[in-house]
């Protein structure tokens, strides 16, 4: 922001800007120097902003028709689907939008893991991101409860009961969360309130996330520090705006496919049955984006330890910048880490699959091994790898591998082009 002083051209602009420097902010955002080697994995920040705005806009319009009452919620959702003008469209965008939001956030997180974006000096960006992710899960869970179908009801029952694992005060906390002795109308109304609130909390955190990003600037696929502004950077507008815009269009094609051709494929059929406190569906599964954590919960045979393991699996990410002892950011220059990275990706996918399967026999065994490996990756492999790994020499600038140089640089270039 302090790279150069900005003065608006018009007299009125200058007058306004002297009193509230909004134009200086706008100028900072358009001129913001960005590494010129950012690849398409870097476009998901913009895509996520789009997802948040989409959820807020469709959510606001749905709230104009939805009734948060145990006797009427299910019917009001059907009313939205059948009677409200374009209600089906808005609801399908909102419901699938949650899935698209998580799809994008997982790509965004795994991009950060591959290129070491969470490392110094970007730890605060990363931690704010993890808080946003936690809030997203809370918002998604409470949103899933609102239609008051069977999965809504029993999902709410199972998740709120996680708190009963807390010794001594657990039962009291669960009763307090429910506002009764089971999930019922008081639970539904407070979930609706919180579901409405959380997106705006996320919006505030997104501002902090971007602010914290603009202090050191973007990481990049080579993972070395970039002098800015310099020949290594391009202004955010128009270069990154166009690239983000193109990626967003591609993303919207996938989004539209789900909304128009398979709007219910990511949901569960049981949620079109109204909530019944006397009958638990034969097979309770959360939405797909929570399955890996669900698998971890179920793989531990003890109630309290299962809950602890599941929460640790998420919270361990917050201390990742200190668990990873390697000074090298990008996996491009870390041949061993790169392999462990892909094993972790496979491990999380396996956990997700096991979370969707019944917790018995071979499924349970595989889920246990995958759970153990998940923690092994963060607690043992990452700290040790940073000290033992023989990394590939870094180029001096992000321009160097492109313009050619020493044999090592050629190798880096080859590795990088293979990646993209």
């Amino acid at each position, binding site marked *: 922001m302090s790279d150069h002083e900005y003065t608006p051209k018009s007299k009125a602009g200058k007058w306004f800007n002297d009193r509230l420097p909004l134009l200086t902010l706008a100028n900072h955002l358009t001129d913001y120097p960005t590494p010129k080697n950012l690849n398409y994995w870097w476009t998901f920040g913009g895509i996520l902003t789009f997802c948040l705005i989409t959820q807020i806009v469709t959510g606001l319009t749905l709230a104009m028709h939805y009734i948060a009452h145990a006797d009427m919620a299910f019917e009001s959702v059907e009313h939205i689907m059948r009677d409200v003008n374009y209600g089906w469209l808005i609801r399908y965008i909102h419901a699938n939008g949650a899935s698209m939001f998580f799809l994008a956030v997982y790509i965004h997180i795994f991009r950060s893991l591959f290129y070491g974006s969470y490392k110094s000096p970007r730890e605060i960006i990363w931690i704010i991101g993890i808080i946003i992710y936690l809030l997203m899960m809370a918002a998604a869970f409470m949103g899933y409860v609102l239609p008051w179908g069977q999965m809504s009801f029993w999902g709410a*029952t199972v*998740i*709120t*009961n996680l708190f009963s694992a807390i010794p001594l005060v657990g039962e009291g906390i669960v009763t307090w969360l429910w*506002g*009764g002795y089971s999930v019922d109308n008081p639970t539904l109304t407070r979930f609706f309130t919180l579901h409405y609130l959380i997106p705006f909390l996320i919006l505030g955190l997104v501002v902090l996330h971007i602010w914290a990003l603009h202090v050191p600037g973007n990481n990049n696929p080579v993972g070395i520090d970039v002098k800015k502004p310099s020949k290594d950077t391009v202004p955010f507008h128009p270069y990154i705006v166009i690239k983000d815009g193109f990626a967003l269009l591609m993303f919207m094609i996938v989004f539209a496919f789900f909304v128009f051709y398979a709007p219910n494929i990511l949901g569960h059929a049981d949620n079109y049955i109204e909530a019944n406190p006397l009958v638990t569906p034969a097979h309770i599964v959360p939405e797909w984006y929570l399955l890996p954590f669900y698998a971890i919960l179920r793989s531990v045979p003890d109630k309290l330890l299962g809950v602890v393991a599941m929460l640790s699996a998420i919270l361990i990410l917050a201390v990742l910048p200190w668990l990873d002892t390697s000074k090298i950011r990008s996996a491009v220059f870390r041949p061993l880490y790169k392999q462990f990275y892909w094993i972790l990706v496979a491990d999380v996918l396996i956990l997700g699959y096991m979370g969707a399967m019944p*917790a018995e026999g071979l499924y349970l065994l595989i889920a246990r091994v995958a759970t153990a490996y998940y923690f092994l990756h963060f607690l043992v492999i990452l700290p040790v790898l940073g000290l033992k790994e023989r990394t590939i020499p870094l180029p001096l600038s992000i321009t160097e591998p492109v313009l050619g140089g020493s044999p090592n640089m050629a190798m880096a270039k080859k590795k990088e082009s293979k990646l993209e």
Partner: protein
Amino acid sequence: MSDKKPKRRDFLFTASYAVGAVGAAAVVWPLVDQMNPDASVKALASTEVDISSLTPGNTITVLWRGKPVFIRRRTQEEIAEARSVKMEDLIHPEKDEDRAKNPEWLVMLGVCTHLGCVPLNDKGDYNGWFCPCHGSHYDTSGRIRKGPAPWNMEIPKYEFVNTNTIKIG
């Protein structure tokens, strides 16, 4: 600060913070407590159930405080099975005699003590109940035998009003 005696102003600061903290807590408590069960929820404390039509080997499920309650009229084999179990084999040791005062009638909350699902009747490895959510097995006395649930299914407060009616709560 440390080598000086506390002054009148330090005392005023400490006193102000203390009063402020008490005031804040007094304001926060109603905002927290409003989420606890309200008077109308607490008022639905008891339910009477007619059990005259229940034959041995069958279960009825009734709703009490928003939760299912299983009332099972057990067969002689089920009672014998429940009473022959050794205490060492139980995860949460409780005698069947203490759980079912009248051995033919088992009245318990049909809520899995793991994460609150409703277990299925006549299922599982112990001929009692099986919870489909995370695979907890309960025996014919509703005691946890296998799986992640930590305790036996809870026995609510109940009494026989007469031979045909049970009052729960």
